């Protein structure tokens, strides 16, 4: 039998099962905790830090997507302090690489752009780093523009967990961190990529896109397939 825990999120009494994360319980109860790396259907990773919440009794912030609930937990998901951090994190994502919404394939279909709007970010106080970053368009159907990548690693997870190909992984460290195909070879030369396109569908920004798409036409409309695929996979006992 599943143990049910009761807890509070933003002063509301909510309940969840043992093993669920704060993020999952919040979602079930219609409490919106922002996040750019969390996506139902793939395992959480805690990469973007936007879902950081305050938990009474601990001085540190915790990522809601990586924190499992316990009985009596008192979670604050929205506060002035958290808003300030979320704005700072979003701003850092924008200035770290070259995000130019106006000419991006994901313009109007971008979770990073939406996040900035939701947090009412009107400008960036930090200077842009403007790094010289590559685009790999060697794949027949898709391309990756590292200028737009925020390292949420959804592509890495969906490729591994759902498609089972593990074409995507991560290389280098710090500002040089990049997602890579196979062992850093051009995507088009990958022998593991099945060209399924799941990575493109889960990408929150315009980093991964279908070739031939114009500015603002790269919507990710096929995304609802994900949780369903996870159920199928579990039922097959994989």
């Amino acid at each position, binding site marked *: 039998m599943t143990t049910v825990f009761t807890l509070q999120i933003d002063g509301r009494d909510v309940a969840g099962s043992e093993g669920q994360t704060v993020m999952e319980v919040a979602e079930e109860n219609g409490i919106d905790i922002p996040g750019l790396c969390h996506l139902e259907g793939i395992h959480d990773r805690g990469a973007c830090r936007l879902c950081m919440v305050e938990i009474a009794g601990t001085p540190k912030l915790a990522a809601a997507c990586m924190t499992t609930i316990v009985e009596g937990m008192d979670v604050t998901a929205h506060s002035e302090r958290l808003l300030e951090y979320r704005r700072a994190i979003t701003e850092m994502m*924008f200035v770290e690489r*070259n*995000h*130019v*919404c*106006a*000419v*991006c394939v994901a*313009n*109007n279909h*971008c979770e990073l*752009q939406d996040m*900035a*709007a939701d947090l*009412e970010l*009107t*400008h*960036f106080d930090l*200077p*842009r780093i*403007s*790094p*010289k*970053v590559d685009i790999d368009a060697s794949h027949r159907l898709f391309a990756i523009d590292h200028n737009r990548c925020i390292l949420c690693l959804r592509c890495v997870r969906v490729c591994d967990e759902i498609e089972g190909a593990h074409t995507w992984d991560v290389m280098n460290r710090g500002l040089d961190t990049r997602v890579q195909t196979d062992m850093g070879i051009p995507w088009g030369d990958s022998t593991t990529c099945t060209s399924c396109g799941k990575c493109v569908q889960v990408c929150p920004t315009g980093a991964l896109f279908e070739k031939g798409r114009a500015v*603002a036409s790269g919507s990710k409309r096929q995304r609802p397939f994900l949780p369903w695929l996870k159920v199928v996979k579990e039922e097959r006992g994989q």
Partner: protein
Amino acid sequence: MSKPRVATVWLDGCSGCHMSLIDMDERLLDIFERADLVYGPLVDFKEFPENVDVCLVEGAVSSEDDLHKIKLVRERTKTLVSFGDCAVTSNVPGMRNPIGVAPLLDRAYLENVTLNPQIPSDVVPKLLPTSTPVHRVVKVDVFLPGCPPSADLIYTLLDDLLAGRVPDVTGARFGR
């Protein structure tokens, strides 16, 4: 009492923000009933005047001329509005920043040219090493992101500023 003095300035941008300004249609009449347009690409005044109450600045600061202009604008303006994505983030003009000025000019004026290749040096102002948002050069009072900001947002902003309210830019976002 004289009317508030409004100016607009066009730095390194595509003029799309000014097009969106004109898109206010008949609301332009309402705004300029209550204010005088004293400078900008839409009117024929040669010098940026003194004592400007509100100035909308479109475009990034990309050349020595932009830099000179924006400093003058700041000196003579009470409320400076960073108007649109190029002014706010450097947007498209800023896409040259990772490349650098010399390789950029080489590519545009030497490598891809068959007739009389030369890098222009007379008349046109020199490019700055990077194209920067306005607020990295002078103090900005209000930010209105958008590529372009909608006519509705521009109207709300001007309406608020002319009425002496803190402008409500709710709904403004990068890109469009």
